[in-house]
């Protein structure tokens, strides 16, 4: 049986579905132009766990949990669960951390960059140009033979670890639910104001996360792969899904009254153009070197890819560094050490790109 979702119309349907669901999540309470943002939501999870203590971005986002578990369900239903690990895990961790740092300088991952554009935020154009530039640099390394080596088949339980961690996070949310006006319940931190306090009801967030996780695992939806395949192979397949996402998100935003064109006063955004661009160069390069956008890494982790799981953990820990060290931006502009972090991150990515070539 052919996999419909991996065909041309399949990926377009999935992109369109995400494009409709994300603004609806915003309508239900998620922050502006942040119906779905993998980087922001993993950063909020990092805050909920106390890995950083930025009071405005602490919430155990059920969408992320749903992404992994939806991918897991799809992989099992279609016999695609392949526990595997061992393709340079430490490199993937470091790439995950710097991808997060770059994304938090821009204030969004590629998913949110598309959604910001679809919501009328002109600053997203700079972020997207940076993303494409970073991916382009990544393709130069790929052409020169950059790769992280082969993974090995492993125990099913290895592939289950990240999904189990996500189930554990969900259990913590149920044991220690948010209490109105309280910044903490049990071990979990919650935001009383700011983006972390804005969220759709748990059940809706989780349901949308599961649906998107399921569809994206089937379709291999990847926002980084979209541009990488276009640059590397002149292939439009994945990009057609991303275009569908932007178009449908734009139309849904118009219908819901969530479209506001401009560069200033955009929600959870700043307009320091150079650093919007450079932050996403770093993120794009790190995603390209790691072989997937932050969403794709979650879906891969759901289908048993232990290396993708390490990337996810790298992003969550990277978010801790980003806020503890003042690397993340805010609507006021870049953080006190954000610029230094982008430069260090780019140097690390170039070191990885230049030094990791081997015959396979």
């Amino acid at each position, binding site marked *: 049986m052919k996999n419909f979702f991996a065909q041309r119309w399949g990926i377009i349907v999935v992109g369109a579905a995400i494009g409709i669901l994300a603004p609806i999540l915003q309508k239900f309470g998620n922050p502006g132009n942040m119906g779905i943002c993998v980087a922001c939501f993993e950063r909020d999870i990092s805050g909920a766990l106390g890995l950083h203590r930025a009071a405005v971005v602490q919430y155990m986002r059920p969408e992320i949990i749903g992404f992994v578990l939806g991918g897991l369900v799809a992989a099992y239903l279609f016999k*695609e669960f392949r526990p595997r690990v061992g393709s340079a895990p430490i490199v993937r961790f470091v790439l995950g951390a710097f991808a997060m740092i770059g994304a938090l300088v821009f204030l969004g991952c590629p998913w949110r960059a598309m959604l910001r554009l679809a919501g009328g935020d002109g600053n997203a154009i700079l972020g997207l140009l940076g993303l494409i530039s970073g991916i382009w640099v990544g393709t130069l390394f790929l052409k020169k033979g950059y790769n992280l080596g082969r993974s090995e088949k492993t125990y099913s339980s290895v592939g289950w670890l990240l999904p189990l961690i996500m189930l554990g996070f969900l259990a913590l949310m149920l044991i220690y639910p948010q209490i109105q006006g309280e910044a903490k319940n049990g071990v979990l931190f919650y935001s009383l104001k700011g983006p972390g306090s804005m969220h759709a009801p748990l059940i809706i967030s989780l349901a949308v996360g599961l649906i998107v996780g399921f569809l994206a695992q089937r379709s291999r939806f990847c926002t980084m792969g979209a541009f990488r395949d276009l640059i590397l192979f002149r292939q439009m397949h994945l990009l057609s899904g991303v275009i569908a996402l932007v178009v449908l998100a734009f139309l849904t935003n118009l219908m819901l009254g969530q479209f506001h064109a401009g560069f200033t006063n955009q929600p959870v955004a700043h307009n320091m153009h150079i650093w919007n661009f450079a932050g996403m160069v770093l993120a794009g390069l790190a995603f390209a070197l790691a072989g997937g956008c932050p969403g794709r890494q979650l879906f891969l982790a759901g289908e048993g890819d232990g290396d993708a799981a390490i990337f996810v953990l790298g992003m969550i820990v990277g978010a801790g560094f980003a806020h503890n060290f003042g690397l993340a931006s805010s609507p006021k502009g870049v953080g006190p050490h954000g610029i230094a972090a982008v430069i260090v991150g780019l140097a690390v990515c170039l070191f990885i790109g230049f030094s990791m070539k081997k015959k396979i």
Partner: protein
Amino acid sequence: MSSKVDARGLSCPQPVLMVMDQMKKISRGKIEILVDTDTSKENVSRAAESKGWQVTDVDPEGEGCRIKITKD
């Protein structure tokens, strides 16, 4: 001309890059490709067809499959 590409254990875009290189190298003939995920299977088949190669066989092998592509 016939040749083999073992892309098992590699994630995208490596399998496609390897097959693209091989297609360029021999320009016509047969290539057998080993992959171990459905994603790689789909990506390799799509890439081959986009370059005018025909996917003649996809047989299960171990955890993954063996893809045969040809161009006259």
